[in-house]
């Protein structure tokens, strides 16, 4: 009975979401800001969830997210920049002949191949990141907590240095970055408009991560988080499972990076600096370390608040003739930092703690408030 009700509620909410997104797609001109923040929010939701898989569920404090995102972003961007734009993008140093040749092949391939190619590019970006994670994991996953954090952070900086180095100019365009990246592709022959694409891709990825967390392997991850020594004594191969979590997390970070490249249309190595990792960490902490739904919720809230609702903090504000002090460029980020510190120091659980969203709890809370109101009256 209750299970049926919850399924019904979930389905309804998803159906409404889809309808809303279709409506938004039809009216995207009038709602530019909303579209923009929702797309960015959903991309960050995926990175946050993948970071949470590592930090919150496996207990590995890694700060390499931005690095893996940049691998995905660069791979996707290099693969999908149309052949006619190549000379414009690589105007300084020219493009590597291999890349041009590859693009010619894609451009000459049947329409179906071309329509799925952006997704192939995302997948390749993810696989490349996963492969790199598997290789460096051999080295870094032996390290304990804070050493791992600083090593992964360093790794991310190494990746950034490689992407912006003049030695790879013909591939990554060095410090000039890449632009003219096509936006999100349509899906299913135009039945699904391009606006929905990031939501669908992220949806699949998050469902995968959720299934993984609830599988036997996910339980093993949690065991490692709780107590490495006990987990190992229970027959769990620490290295194998940590590496699994690291590879999966890197894969999805890279997919999100690819989506971000499509969203931003132009990327440079500087985009993926330490600050980006910190931004993602902020989302994870506010959402609750160890909660997938918390991360998703927080990704949307933080992005929307940062990019839209709280914009006014950065503008001078007038009450009549009196200018409210403090309101000027940069104030918004100060508010955010303070908010983060408040969560870290006082509301340590964040929005969701380590629990997941459930209808039962929501309805339970709703009833309780209602009852207590009734009691007071």
């Amino acid at each position, binding site marked *: 009975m209750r299970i049926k009700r919850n399924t019904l509620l979930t389905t309804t909410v998803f159906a409404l979401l889809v309808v809303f997104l279709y409506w938004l797609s039809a009216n995207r001109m009038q709602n530019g800001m909303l579209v923009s923040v929702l797309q960015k929010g959903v991309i960050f939701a995926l990175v946050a969830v993948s970071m949470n898989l590592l930090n919150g569920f496996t207990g590995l404090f890694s700060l390499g997210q931005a690095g893996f995102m940049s691998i995905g972003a660069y791979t996707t961007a290099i693969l999908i920049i149309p052949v006619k734009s190549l000379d414009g993008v690589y105007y300084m140093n020219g493009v590597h002949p291999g890349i041009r040749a590859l693009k010619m092949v894609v451009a000459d391939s049947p329409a179906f191949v071309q329509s799925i190619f952006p997704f192939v590019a995302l997948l390749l970006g993810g696989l490349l990141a996963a492969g790199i994670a598997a290789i460096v994991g051999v080295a870094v996953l032996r390290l304990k907590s804070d050493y791992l954090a600083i090593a992964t*952070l360093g790794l991310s900086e190494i990746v950034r240095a490689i992407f912006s180095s003049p030695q790879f100019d013909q591939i990554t365009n060095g410090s000039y970055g890449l632009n003219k990246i096509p936006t999100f592709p349509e899906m299913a022959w135009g039945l699904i408009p391009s606006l929905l694409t990031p939501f669908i891709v992220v949806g699949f990825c998050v469902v995968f991560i959720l299934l993984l967390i609830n599988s036997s392997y996910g339980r093993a991850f949690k065991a490692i988080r709780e107590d490495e020594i006990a987990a190992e004594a229970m027959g769990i191969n620490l290295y194998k499972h940590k590496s699994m979590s690291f590879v999966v997390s890197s894969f999805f970070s890279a997919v999100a990076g690819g989506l971000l490249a499509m969203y931003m249309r132009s990327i440079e190595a500087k985009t993926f600096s330490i600050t980006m990792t910190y931004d993602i960490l902020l989302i994870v902490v506010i959402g609750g370390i160890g909660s997938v739904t918390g991360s998703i919720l927080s990704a949307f809230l933080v992005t929307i608040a940062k990019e839209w609702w709280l914009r006014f903090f950065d503008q001078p504000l007038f009450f009549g003739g009196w200018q409210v002090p403090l309101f000027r460029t940069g104030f918004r980020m100060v508010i955010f930092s303070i908010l983060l510190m408040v969560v870290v120091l006082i509301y340590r659980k964040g929005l969701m703690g380590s629990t997941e969203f459930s209808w039962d709890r929501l309805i339970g809370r709703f009833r309780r408030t209602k009852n207590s109101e009734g009691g007071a009256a």
Partner: protein
Amino acid sequence: MSMTTILQHCLTGISLGGAYALIAIGYTLVYGILRLINFAHGDIFMMAGYFMIFALASFPWPVAIIITLVVTTVMGIGIERFAYKPLRNAPRMSIMISAIGVSYLLQNLSTYLFTAIPRGYPELPYLKKIYQIGELSASFVTILTPILTIVLVFVLMILVNKTKTGMAMRATSKDFETAKLMGININRVVSVTFAIGSLLAGIGSILYFTDRMSVTPFSGTLPGLKCFVAAVFGGIGNIPGAVVGGFFIGIVETLLVALGYSTFSDAFTFLLLIIMLLVKPTGLFGEKNVEKV
């Protein structure tokens, strides 16, 4: 490259290394006692740069330096009280996140207060005076930095090894819980540690920025991380180790830039870190630690 050019670069490297060494000591001390990478340390160093700019705008330089150092020290102690002390019994990850949060806050706060546009660092005429040694030319600060670093480390070593506070610090870094049970005032020890670390970061900041000429809200991040690497390289918790690490990274980085690999000079530091952690996780001079089951 001629011998003179190489020597010239080495001199610059040693000077940079001296500043790194001073910052690295802050990391090593704090890590030794709290087992915490103080991610905000680089930003304390950056803030010290801004303090100096503002202090020098209204005071003569000796007063300005004193003000800068005092404010930086107080800020370091304040950060510990406000952001780390409440989390002393929380899991390691929370306190690390708190440190990152402080770093984030300081960066955003300074962007807000001072804008992201680089601000010129005032020139102290005495520090910038150029000396000629044979074919080498060096400003006074280049020569002063390594000397001052060595002197300060010497003083610090005496403080740590010969005074009562130093003994308390060593005891706390060996075993936090036992030190507490033995009646050592942990809060005081931690405060002293942060004070020393921030003071040295303040001095390092003056030396570093005099050579670099401008400060931005993000100019603390990378030097900060590099100095942590220096501390790990030398063996975390080991003061002379941090100094050696600081000089090493400073010199190699300068040489890499001189050879035209400037994009890789940052990457090199982190590569060094990863290799070090794999080959000898305890660093050059670190002690071995056996984990108890």
